[in-house]
Structure formats: C-alpha cells, structure tokens
C-alpha cells in the first residue's frame, strides 16, 4: 500500500515538474500574502529542530482543516552528501539521509521505497512508522533527491492519505526553491 501511495507521489511530482517554470516563482510567493488560501493549503512554519551538521531548512504545514489531518513537511539541501556518480539508488540511503531522525531516532520502514523524480532531480522515497519518545506512533515519509554530489531531502510528518497531490505540489515548489537558492549558488 505504501508503495502505491508513493507511486502516486511520483506521478504527482512529475506532473508538478512539468509546470515547474510556473512554480519557480518560489515558495515565498505561494505562501505569502498574495497567495490564494483556496489553492494553496500549505503555510510556512518555523524550522523547529536544533542546529546540526546542515543548514536549517524550511517547514510547511497543511492544517487538519485543509488536509483532513495535519501534515508537516521539512525540507533542506545537504550539499556534498551524496555519491556523485550513482545518486540515491537504494532504500538504505533514504534511511540514512532523509532527516527522519530529526523527528525520532526510532523509525521502521513500511515496505520498500520507490524511485521518485522532481524536476530534474531523481531519488527515492520510502514510508516509515515512527515511534516517538513519548511512546506515540505516527507515520512519516522520507524523500531523498540528488543532483550530482548534492542532495535535497524531505521528511513528511503525518498520514498522507488522499493528500498526495497537495504533497507533490509543496515538494515540487520547495525543491525548486532550494535548487535555485542553494545548489545553483544564488544565495551565496
């Protein structure tokens, strides 16, 4: 089931990628004051995690009122953290790099991951069951995409269910923003 859901993400992401030129206006435009609340369920929220090896990323929330359940997406680049030649080729790489441990060190894969692509980045995504420090269990998806030696990784908190299209939309937009700002060196 998880694999099927992720394939939906792949399709959605690729479709979103087709409209990438339109989306490159960037996350700020889509979540700023001019955004249409009806069309864009995501709101930017603060990056809540402590400083670690990588620069802080960006976080987005789709509240339960819009998505049926609350979904949080945390996304950031990890420059130079990928096999430059092979990219992200196996599920263990997703386990290793996709920031799941920002949320909990205890995560268990729910089946095999699948290949995904957003714009010209390719990688893999995998669903997980998370056990938090307070004992509660939740669901998450890890996504790792590469370009050359660089990664963009995302972790999605919450049960995605019917929200694959909305998730694809925010991932495509955010990935494009990070490619522009970080991998392409426009924020140096």
């Amino acid at each position, binding site marked *: 089931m998880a694999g099927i859901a992720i394939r939906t993400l792949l399709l959605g992401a690729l479709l979103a990628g087709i409209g990438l030129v339109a989306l490159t206006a960037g996350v700020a435009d889509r979540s700023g004051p001019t955004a249409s609340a009806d069309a864009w369920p995501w709101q930017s929220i603060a990056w809540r995690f402590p*400083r*670690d*090896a*990588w620069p802080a990323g960006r976080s987005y929330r789709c509240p339960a009122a819009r998505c049926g359940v609350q979904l949080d997406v945390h996304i950031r680049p990890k*420059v*130079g*953290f990928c*096999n*430059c*030649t*092979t990219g992200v080729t196996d599920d*263990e790489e997703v*386990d*290793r790099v996709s920031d*799941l*441990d920002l949320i*909990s*060190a*205890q*995560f*268990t*894969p729910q089946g095999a991951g699948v290949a995904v692509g957003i714009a010209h980045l390719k990688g893999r995504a995998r669903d997980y069951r998370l056990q938090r420090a307070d004992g509660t269990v939740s669901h998450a998806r890890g996504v790792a995409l590469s370009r050359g030696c660089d990664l963009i990784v995302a972790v999605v908190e919450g049960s995605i269910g019917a929200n694959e299209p909305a998730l694809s939309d925010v991932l495509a937009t955010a990935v494009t923003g990070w490619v*522009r700002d970080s*991998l*392409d*060196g*426009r924020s*140096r």
Partner: protein
Amino acid sequence: MRLVGMNDLQARSAYQPTIHRQGDRWIAYIGHHGGTEAVPAPVNPQTGKPEPNGTSIVDVTDPAQPKYLRHIPGQAGTYEQGGAQMVRICDGKGLTKGDPAAVYMLRTFGGEAHEIWNVADPANPVLITRIGGLKDTHKSWWECDTGIAFLVSGAPDWRVRRMTQVYDLSDPAHPVKIRDFGLPGQEPGSTGTVPTELHGPISTGPQGNRVYFGYGTNVGGILQIVDRSKLLSGAKEPTADNLRYPEVARLMLSSWNGAHTVFPMPRMPVAEFAKDKVGATRDFIMVVDEAILNECNEPRQMVWFADVSIESRPMIVSSYTVAEASGSFCARGGRFGAHASNESMAPIYYKKMAFISFFNAGVRALDVRDPYHPAEVGHFIPAITAATDKRCVKVDGQDRCKVAIQTNNVETDERGYIYIVDRANTGLHILELTGSARAVAGLR
C-alpha cells in the same frame, strides 16, 4: 620545506601514497581516484593506451629523480566511483603464512573489490587474489606482522556504504574472513537512525590491543576506540549487542566535523606535565577531518588532538588549522581544509612531527611533541602545472571554475622524505624539511 623531486603521475588524480623499502630500493605506491569526465582514462605513455586510473608505482630511491615504473589500471569510472584509491604494503617475510620472497600490495579496486598483488618486482606486479562483491571500499589498514586486515568495505546488506570487514590476510593467497563490524544501527535488519559511516581504521596491533575507527568525512564525526582482542574473538553475528561488545569508548565530534584519519600517539611524555605526579605521560589520538566542498562552502575541517589517557572519557584538548587569511585560501579555488595525516609510525617523525595535507594550502608540518599545543613549523604548496585540473562552484546557476592545487594525502619514509600527492592531477612531490623544522624532528 623544500622540493626535492617530482613526478606527474601521468596526470592522474591521486589519493594515497605509501612508501616501502624493498632491498636497497625505495618504492612509492600511489592510489588514484577515477578519471575526470573530460579524461576518464588517461593515456599511459608506457603502453600508449588509455587506462582507467589505478595504482602508480614509482621508484623513489633517488628522490630527486623519481622513475615511473608501472601503472596498474583500476576500476573504470570517474572521480570517487572508479580508480584504486587506497594502497598498503606488507613484506611476505613478515607475514606468518606469506611467501617470504613476496612483497604484497593491498589495494582497492574502485568500490567493488579489494585486491592483493605481489610487487616483489615492482615493475611487473602479479595479481594474487581479489575480495569482491562490494558496494564501496575505502582506506583500509593491514597489520604487517599478524596479517589481520581491517578492510573498509560496503557489504551489500549493510545500511551504509562503508563498514569494516575483518580478514586474516596472513596468507594473502587465501583470505579468511573473520567478521563484519560497524556501529550498532548500521547492521543488516536494524531500524532507526543510521550512524555515520566509516572512513578508516588504524590498529596498534596485538601489543597495543586497540583499533581506532574514524567515522565521517566533514560531518558527524565519531572516534571509536575498540578492544582489538574482543573484536577478533567476539561473537561474529552482526547484532547490535555483538557490535557493541568490543567498543571501549567513543568520542562524538561536533556535527560540523568528520573523522577522516584517527592517528594514535600513545604514551607521550608531555613536558608541561613532567612534574605532575599523575598524568605526566598521556595517550593521544590526532583526528583529521576531511574538507569536501570547494571554496569554503562548509564549516572548517581541521585537526583535533584528543587526550584518550582516560579511555572512557576521551577529550579534545587542542586543534590546528591553517589561517585562511595567510593565503586567502577560501578564494583560491577548490577545497581548503584538512584531509589526512601521514600514517607512518617510523621513529624519525613519530610523536614529534605530523604532516597534514590541506588541499589548496598544500602540506603543513606540525610540531606535535606537546599535543596540547601543536605548532606549525613548515609548509609547502606545489605550483600548478598544465595538468592541474579545475575546481568549480555554482554561482548564479553557472559553473565558476578555478585551477588550484589540491594536496590530498601525505606520507613519509624512514629516510625522512615527505611525499605529497595532488587530487587535481598535479602529481607527486617529494619534500624534505629545512631550517628549524629539522631540529624538531632531531635531524641535522
């Protein structure tokens, strides 16, 4: 430091040199990265054919006139994906089951295998055996007396690309696997956070009974101190408990730094503490990070000295870096930061001088007689040549490239020569100390 001689190594990107005395000759073995996209397999002038980068064998008996003897091709592929980066040498007469007439070279073959060659005639090496089926390799360690090897490998079912496979290579023709090893959480079937993958180990052998493992390159570094005897004799099944059993302690570095080389310097008398009733002699580990991003696009990767006298409480007590402003190194192009130290424990420099490769800042000679206060006493930055490759960063979506020296690794020989090799294809430079630096090492 003064340049004595050089060789262009056929303009191949170089990773690790090892220098070995064979009779009255001194032979340098240099491991290479894969080729570049522009030149994936440089032409070997000796054969007239393109050959994927592998291992260069150079006679450095006369360091002023190095003679290129042979290139052994490596795995096809570019950069980290191909080549034969790592090389270690052991005499057959030192190994309990080796051919006394043989000189054995252990090398990686790209990411897919380890190989052992007989290089008794260094111009005509002979392949002895191969340990394959791996998803990656890196900087291994081979004890030349016991034959025990700690091979940095990627076992296909492990969750990291690089872990340890312990082998008995006392009979190099017949490798005997002892066990797989890594940090709990890296083993097959485990879940949750995956600890930082291995970079390389250094063993102090049966006498020291410790193996020091360095995990990470430029992030999430870990120094792991392992009881060698427990590692070799403990239960071999890679469960979390079995992996934890031989560990003595670990030192977690800042998330901003890795642990490329962890070089032990045990039982060092520290002059400042000479009159102290306790702690006058101390055990140290020199931890060298690896810079991996061009033009300072990462936290500074440098050198750290850990006092491990109390093994259960290892503590960083000092650090060293090249001063960026001394050469505007962040603007020179390529990587700036530490990469590796020499790993020879020959008496001429051991516990007195350490040599650190620092990419575009060349090689740095450190006085380490008091690891609480390491001091730079010399340096050398080779000149670029027509072969020196460019290094690029993205600016406004476009590649902005510069040509810069990228001193990758350094090694010393028992005569005191210092060998540095360049990642950006500039070749091998053989150096010697001059001035006050010679006095630090006790040289005339």
